[in-house]
């Protein structure tokens, strides 16, 4: 095993370093802006990379949580996300398993077919769906989002789970079945427990798809108390030409950090599931 040469290492730093700075800069900037006072922020004479005139301050965070409906939006997002994740698992766990193990040759084709529906973007569907939602009287209700969001989380999760289940050794199931367990018991008692890391990955990534969704949320919900963070921050904290920049940056920073940490933890499993399904 040849070790990496010094030149190669230096090359890596020279490529990765600048990219890391550019890609992460907006987050550094969120953090910096979120702690500034008005006097410091809106004075072009001040150096934007340092603090003066009363900065750093936590006032912007207080403003966000007491004078805006930010907390409502966070709660709405968590609520919608949690229910959508449950619905997603109910549909995609059995389907993912059956496609990976029970279906034989046609399973792969159906799996790819389900996955392709994930490529049908919300921008094609939001117009008819917005009409359907208002015919059903669900406009401005979180129920509308709970109803529609599984349309992209279920195909995505079924595909990931199919990939995970393929990596589980068949012998484990065979052993349980030799001991007299039925297929369904094997599924519940043997397969699902050892697939827990994979299932958690699906939970994280489905939840993150919900937080990232913008078009449906923008079209279906216009009451400010029923908004999710994806639209609430952008539509409510910007009023006409008045921008609450520090509050805005605090609002973007708060959900980003935990999600980014979770992503990092589950990334390798995500890749395994995403590419393990068909493209090995």
């Amino acid at each position: 095993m040849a070790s990496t040469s010094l030149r190669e290492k230096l090359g890596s730093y020279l490529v990765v370093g600048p990219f890391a700075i550019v890609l992460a800069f907006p987050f550094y900037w969120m953090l910096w802006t979120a702690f500034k006072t008005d006097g410091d922020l809106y004075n072009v004479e001040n150096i934007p990379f340092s603090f003066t005139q009363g900065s750093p301050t936590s006032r912007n965070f207080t403003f966000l949580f007491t004078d805006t409906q930010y907390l409502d939006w966070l709660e709405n997002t968590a609520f919608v996300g949690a229910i959508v994740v449950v619905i997603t698992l109910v549909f995609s766990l059995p389907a993912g398993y059956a496609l990976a193990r029970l279906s034989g040759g046609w399973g792969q084709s159906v799996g790819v077919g389900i996955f392709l529906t994930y490529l049908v973007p919300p921008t094609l569907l939001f117009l008819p769906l917005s009409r359907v939602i208002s015919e059903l009287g669900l406009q401005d209700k979180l129920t509308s989002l709970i109803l529609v969001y599984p349309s992209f989380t279920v195909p995505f999760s079924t595909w990931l789970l199919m990939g995970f289940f393929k990596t589980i050794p068949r012998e484990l199931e065979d052993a349980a079945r030799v001991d007299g367990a039925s297929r369904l018991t094997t599924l519940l008692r043997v397969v699902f427990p050892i697939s827990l890391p994979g299932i958690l990955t699906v939970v994280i990534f489905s939840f993150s798809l919900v937080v990232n969704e913008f078009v449906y949320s923008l079209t279906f919900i216009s009451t400010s108390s029923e908004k999710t963070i994806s639209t609430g921050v952008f539509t409510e904290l910007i009023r006409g030409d008045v921008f609450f920049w520090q509050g805005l940056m605090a609002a973007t920073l708060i959900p980003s950090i935990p999600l980014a940490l979770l992503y990092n933890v589950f990334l390798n499993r995500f890749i395994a599931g995403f590419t393990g399904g068909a493209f090995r």
Partner: protein
Amino acid sequence: MEAATAARPRRRRRAFLEERRFLAPVLIAPACLFIAVLIAGPLLLAVYLSFSDATAGSLTGDWVGFDNYLNAWDNPVFRKALWNTVLFTVASQVIVLIAAGLLAHALIRPFRGKWILRFLILLPWAAPIPLGAVAWLWIYDSLFSVVNWTLVHDILPGGGELLPYKIVNAITPWTIEPFDPPQWLGDPTLALGAVISVHAWRVIPFATVIFLAGLASIPKEVDDAAKVDGATGLKKFWYVTLPLQLPIATVALLFGIVFTAADMTVVYILTRGGPFNSTQMLTTWSYQTGINAGSLGEGAAISLYLLPVLAAVAILMLRFARRSEVS
């Protein structure tokens, strides 16, 4: 005797669930049905709407044939949007492929601090994009843009001669006036560049991750064989790494195309299609026509112009899936 007959139905049900032929469809059907109702249904409805004169407030209208498609086409804004969508997609994907290729090759080697650098590179993909785009709105602000501040202030050692904007003026075809700094979201050309850059920023981490997975899957023996044959540097990349990487790179690219051409979030938050429709895309134009102006039929027709692209991507994906199945 009696006990045996009573037990039979239960045993039959159990046998039914044990049979793969039956159990598999039973487990798959709910997901398929759900997808049919929530995706195929609305998609067909969109096609129907695009052939009708339905407006906001109703779900039906009179059949008007291809009128909506033709009306949309006749509008110069639509053609601008179509061209912008192509430009937006191609330009951002080219940036993404180059950046992700470089990053993946650099990140595959072990080096000190790799963990933290990888974390920083992943951030744009891990954070919700509607929030990330708002941060860019602030970075590109008309008065307090940090980019502009950096351009015109003396931050490099070397005094007034080395102001960043002077360097830009010297080595690029652009000219920056320090008292009239670039309006990143207010100038038609710059605004298009801004939305392209923000979208590339967002997709680079995803493509890097997929490329890394592809590189990591190349067996060590292939590497060693290439070394024995004397293939190094560019030669090795061209004859060994690239062909092996191509399938997974194509998948990442196809994904990128769909999620760029059909993405509305970045453009809507940064510019809403402005200034003067210079960043109007099919998605934002469809939203404005269908929701803001209330022409449901024409809005649906505009968004369905994206369908050929999606169909082409889907066919290519299927082809790849089949090939990897055979191998």
